[in-house]
């Protein structure tokens, strides 16, 4: 059989295959509760979060300016992390004319499914300059294990 380049005569069938593969991957990942699932599940609930990982840990950050750290309530139940808190309006503003009022006050609550198993008892949360950082050590089974290659 003649060798044909991608995207020439067979461009369209290849593209079709690619599309099918993406579809399958998404479906499987949603079933497994993978990262794509996490991303697509974002429904616009305050606060938006960023999630990153290294070999040992998951890191979750959220920008919560003006939120009283005392009001922050974090909990983990199996692989669901819940963040709750209150942003209070500025106190003692009476007899003032507002020129701008863009900052919102109120309460918030967000639950999210983590993409992998973590060790909840070793989780740490830090609130610094209005940014919350949650460090979640991965569970042993969720970590990648290095396999040493023996040279004989």
């Amino acid at each position, binding site marked *: 059989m003649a060798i044909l380049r991608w995207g020439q005569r067979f461009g369209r069938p290849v593209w079709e295959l690619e599309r099918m593969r993406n579809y399958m991957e998404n479906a499987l990942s949603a079933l497994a509760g993978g990262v794509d699932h996490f991303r697509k599940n974002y429904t616009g609930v305050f606060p938006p979060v960023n999630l*990153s990982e290294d070999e040992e840990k998951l890191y979750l950050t959220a920008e919560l300016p003006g939120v009283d750290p005392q009001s922050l309530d974090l909990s983990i139940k199996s692989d669901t992390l819940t963040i709750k808190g209150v942003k209070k309006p500025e106190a003692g503003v009476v007899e003032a004319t507002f020129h701008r009022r863009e900052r919102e006050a109120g309460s918030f609550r967000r639950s999210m499914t983590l993409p992998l198993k973590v060790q909840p008892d070793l989780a740490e949360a830090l609130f610094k*300059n209005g940014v919350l950082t949650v460090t979640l050590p991965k569970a042993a089974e969720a970590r990648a294990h290095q396999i040493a290659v023996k040279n004989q």
Partner: protein
Amino acid sequence: MSADSQEINVREKKPLDLGGAESTSGEPRFSPDVDIWETDAGLTLVADMPGVTADGLSVDLHENMLTIFGRVGEPKQPGKYLAQEYEVGDFYRQFALSEQIDQDKIAAAVKDGVLTLTLPKQAPAQPRKITVVSE
């Protein structure tokens, strides 16, 4: 309505509009959300600038143009991103002030990522001080 019953709506951070000019670093910059109110004594400006420390903050009043700039201390979180729902970048915003502000009495404080600026009005009878600095 009490603060506890009202839920916060999510809003995307506003990228800074530089009127067509690009930042040289290519990193995103944002326009912070502010509250500004006025009393007989002066103006108060409160700005949400998460991640900005006191060291990274600069407030400048020049010819009634107030400029606030906040540098984010830690723009990157450790590891590889799995999901990114918001971007991190410095904050910048300018305001043209119509009131005469006593420049010497401006006070700035930053706590939990919120900048509070107190801008007292100048006493009307007081002549405007002009400081000439020789270089």
